[in-house]
């Protein structure tokens, strides 16, 4: 699972500022040395002064000052190195997060269309947060404790090699315990997290869909289902408790006592043979008391390694995806006309073409109505015209230039589009209209009137300043469509792309909107996908699509006269409406 690329991804951000890293390591080494010195001094005091009852003040005062100084320095050093490492870790994760987010924002549209939003968000925030935990915990806890462990062992070895070897058996034993805990707790913890996510999803749907559950009399069934999930999670958590109770603190404490017993025997053997110093035992006992805590800390952090490994692998595969290509032709658009030549488009990974051999010319100022059954390729064509998807075969020229060579900003200044389900940002209504451009109040008022949004705004207590979205006002689909239309009109575009943009608007408003759009005729190139005849009654030309091909074109009136034509059939199906 851990390979070189993964290591590089995780380590490189840490190595950005080497000087700071080296400084932090020096601090860590110094603090550990000072820390370990404490029991050493005590041992020296007991064996050289206390037991022989040598109580001259000068050496004792020096000893005292050394003790106070070393311990004070150790405390300060430990604190400072933690801060240093925390800073390094957080800067590293910040850098990584920026990189991932930038990459995600520049991924091709088809990647986003095929990936649920929640999953993509999880990559940017949760996965990088897993790495943050790794950095913080690893640098702050694991490194520090590992160093302490080594320091203690070195000090022990210097003092008494035989006793140190006894104490050092703690390491392999602890390694086995850690390994066993690791093996058992990883899957168990994963199961708990999985069930927890399930619980959250159930609560979420209960909050969102309770009225449906009530109306369909399903509250009892869903309640039981939630209860079963709770019980399953209870058992899973109890399992993790069992594992940690068997293998974590209790086990390491047990091992600690066994080693204490071994030390006593080892010391006793020396002492019975004569020549052992009691101070040595005192120092060892003190050190031993501090060894099990680092081991426990390290053991508990192992899950984080695992999690971060998984998160890092996911991030790698995300970063491996190529970004969308963007054109760099920044010359402004002179004429807002399109030419499509034998245009073919196939969705990424699809087996069939969505658009097949489409040839079409759209002069500036032309109003084109695009009709056809669901799945005939209307919306896809609109995406291509908007430059959101790349052409597979053939040409799509805007202003005589291939659209993929144009810089996005060039396209965006002349074009506005309104999708069927417009996106509303959680900011004020005004910001939602402006979307980064500047406009005076008169222009805003005009766009609002044209898009029939006035009535809604007058109803709102704070008017244009009303916050929208998750934490603000929720708009109905129809209101969202009007807002998106106003947003598009405000930009005074030369190209306007509408995708069933008024489908959820009531009929009176819709007919007013159609009049507003008809007024743009001749000035603005318009491509309008519609499923209601009235929307495109004023179009210069109607294009009928079927299975990705253009099967009929012409002025709407002429097409309606042709009772053999596809357009005619589209509106004259038998049904209660026309009986």
């Amino acid at each position, binding site marked *: 699972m851990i390979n070189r690329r993964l290591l590089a991804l995780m380590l490189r951000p840490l190595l950005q500022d080497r000087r700071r890293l080296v400084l932090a390591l020096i601090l860590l080494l110094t603090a550990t040395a000072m820390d370990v010195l404490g029991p050493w001094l005590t041992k020296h005091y007991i064996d050289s002064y206390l037991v022989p009852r040598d109580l001259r003040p000068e050496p004792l005062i020096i000893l*005292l000052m050394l003790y106070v100084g070393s311990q004070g320095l150790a*405390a300060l050093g430990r604190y400072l190195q933690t*801060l240093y490492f925390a800073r390094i870790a957080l800067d590293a994760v*910040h850098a990584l997060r920026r990189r991932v987010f930038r990459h995600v924002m520049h991924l091709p549209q088809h990647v986003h269309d095929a990936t649920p939003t929640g999953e993509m968000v999880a990559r940017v925030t949760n996965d990088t947060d897993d790495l943050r935990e790794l950095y913080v915990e690893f640098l702050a806890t694991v490194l520090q404790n590992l160093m302490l462990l080594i320091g203690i062992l070195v000090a022990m070895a210097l003092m008494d090699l035989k006793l140190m070897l006894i104490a050092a058996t703690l390491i392999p034993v602890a390694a086995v315990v850690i390994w066993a805990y690791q093996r058992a707790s990883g899957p168990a913890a994963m199961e708990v997290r999985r069930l927890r996510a399930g619980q959250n999803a159930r609560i979420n749907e209960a909050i969102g869909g309770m009225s449906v559950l009530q109306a369909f009399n399903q509250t009892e069934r869903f309640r039981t289902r939630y209860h079963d999930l709770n019980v399953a999670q*209870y058992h899973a958590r109890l399992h993790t408790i069992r594992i940690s109770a068997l293998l974590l603190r209790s086990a390491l404490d047990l091992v600690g006592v*066994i080693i204490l017993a071994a030390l006593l025997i080892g010391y006793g053997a020396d002492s*019975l043979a004569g020549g052992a110093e009691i101070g040595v035992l005192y120092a060892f006992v003190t050190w031993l008391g501090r060894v099990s805590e680092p081991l426990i800390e390290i053991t508990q952090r192992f899950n984080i390694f695992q999690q971060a490994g998984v998160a890092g692998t996911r991030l790698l595969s995300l970063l491996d995806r190529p970004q969308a290509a963007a054109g760099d032709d920044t010359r402004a658009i002179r004429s807002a006309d399109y030419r499509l030549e034998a245009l073919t488009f196939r969705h990424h990974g699809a087996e069939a073409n969505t658009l097949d051999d489409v040839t079409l010319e759209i002069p500036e100022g032309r109003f084109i109505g695009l009709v056809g059954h669901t799945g005939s390729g209307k919306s896809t064509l609109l995406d291509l015209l908007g430059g959101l998807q790349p052409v597979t075969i053939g040409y799509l020229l805007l202003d005589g230039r291939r659209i993929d060579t144009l810089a996005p900003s060039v396209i965006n200044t002349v074009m506005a589009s309104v999708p069927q389900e417009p996106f509303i940002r959680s900011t004020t209504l005004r910001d939602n209209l402006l979307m980064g451009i500047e406009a005076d109040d008169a222009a805003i008022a005009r766009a609002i009137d044209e898009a029939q949004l006035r009535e809604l705004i007058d109803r709102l207590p704070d008017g244009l300043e009303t916050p929208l979205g998750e934490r603000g006002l929720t708009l109905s689909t129809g209101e969202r469509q009007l807002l998106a239309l106003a947003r598009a009109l405000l930009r005074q575009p030369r190209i306007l792309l509408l995708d069933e943009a008024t489908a959820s608007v009531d009929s009176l408003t819709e007919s007013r909107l159609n009049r507003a759009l008809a007024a743009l005729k001749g000035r603005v190139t318009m491509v309008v996908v519609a499923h209601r*005849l009235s929307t495109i009654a004023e179009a210069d030309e109607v294009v009928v699509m079927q299975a990705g091909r253009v099967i009929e074109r012409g002025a709407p009136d002429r097409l309606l*006269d042709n009772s053999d034509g596809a357009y005619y059939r589209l509106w004259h199906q038998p049904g209660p409406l026309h009986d």
Partner: protein
Amino acid sequence: MALRRLLLDFLATHRRAYLLAIMALLAVGLLNMALPWWAGRIIDALNEGRIDMSGLWRSAAVLVAVALAMYGLRYLWRILLFGASYQLGVALRDRFYEKLTRLDPGFFQQRRSGDLLARSTQDIDAVEVAAGEGVLSSVDGALTLLLVLAMMIIVIDAPLALIALIPFPFMAWGFYRVASRVQGYFGQSLARFSDLNDRTQEAIAGLRLLRQHSLIEAEIADFDRRAEAHARANYQVQRMEARYDPVVFLALGSATLATIAAGSWRYLSGAITLGELTSFTLYLVQLIWPMFALGWCLNILQRGEAAARRLTEFFHERETIDDAGERSKVPSPALHIAIDAFTYPLATTPALTDLQLEIKPGQTVGIVGATGSGKSTLIRLLLRQYPLTHGTLILGDHPLGDYQLGTLRSMYAYVPQDPYLFAATLGENVALGVPDASDSEIRAALEAAAFGPDLARLPDGLDTRIGERGVTLSGGQRQRVALARALLSPAPILLLDDTLSAVDQTTEQQLLTTLEAERERTCLIVSHRLSAVRHADQIVVLDQGRAVEQGRHDTLLTRNGHYARLWQEQQIRIAETPS
């Protein structure tokens, strides 16, 4: 107070588990005291030459035996204590869900879903922690403190203990200070993280919009700022947490110094042995836990109290719809509607006034009117989502309130305006009201709801996962799935709330044919398109909450009133089709 009320009942029912856990804790504490004491005795015996090698082995074996007993007891109390507290979690989660099932749409509209979700997770967790870790830290902390003090003062040496203990109150105070500030910063860091998460979610969901408005770089810069804020908040947490270390370190260091100084004096005056001094040092380390537990416990209880208050408030949320009816049989699905006035809670003007309507079993009734005219309100009242204060609603000779809620709800198959789909497979979503429906029945319902062609395009057919983390359906598709859900249900009354608004003309006709075939069911169709209700047995025209006209299509047309005008308006668009 709230926490105590929530916990007391629970503690009483799980008295046995708690008592056993506390006894195990006590036993562990006692054994834990015996360990250093025994180790000290061995050292003294060695120093005084009172013990030989085999005696040493025996003494060490006792040490190990005690450690093994502790291992078993530690396992026991963990399972007992945490097992019990996790059961509290299960009980509270069940209760939470049950409460949700009894609340009305008005409640859900006023609450942010994130807030409710947080209560079901974080708040229940906090209470659970109070019942587990809270009990542990308070009981075990106090127990350990008392035992260690007893050993130090009574068994070893009172003057030594009194001097060595001076730093410990400072340690406890330091812990508490650090813990409460960590808590504060931790909350801030969580808030920053959720901020970052929300914004990322919005950026990715609205990526098309951002691309089309050249806002990608601005969004990346904004992300940067938020990521930076999160990193800063996180650094504060790390900085605060890092302070634990010097607190322990300095307090323990000074206590050790005091122990050695006072211990030297007591040793030289013959009050204690060197073995006892070593034991004393071991006890000293054990005092860290009670000091930490004190601060920890206060924190846990504070958080638990706040969480319990919020939970209690939620559990006592007013239920506007009481399930007090007793009837479990509906004699006939005839509806008699006599509404004098209905005003939504918190609203000032009534949504419906003076509506009289008689619906015979099997009749189709159309409710038409502009947005905001009160069409959906009628359906909500029939479902008893809101209580009707002025007027009567009679179903089969009895007021709605006389029936058990379950009985009443089993009468309706309801398609809401903005249909909610659960994060499950398509098949499960359709079979919501009839969980044991066969695949062919589900298919038939989808077919009737004009979802057949869409179904053919879904990757896994009925098993396709929809909703969050699955395939995203368009507004029109969602409505048709919801319609299939209602068609599959055997309930005698169909309630359609503007179900045909987001479908195209062809599909609308298909659906009307389907409804035509549902002749034996009573059908209430709310619509803003008149074509959807043209063939209804009765049509009610609502304008600002009043029924301005009522009758059949033909009669209403001849009356030349509101309906005729609306019809004219919508006909223009159809008349443009010279058929």
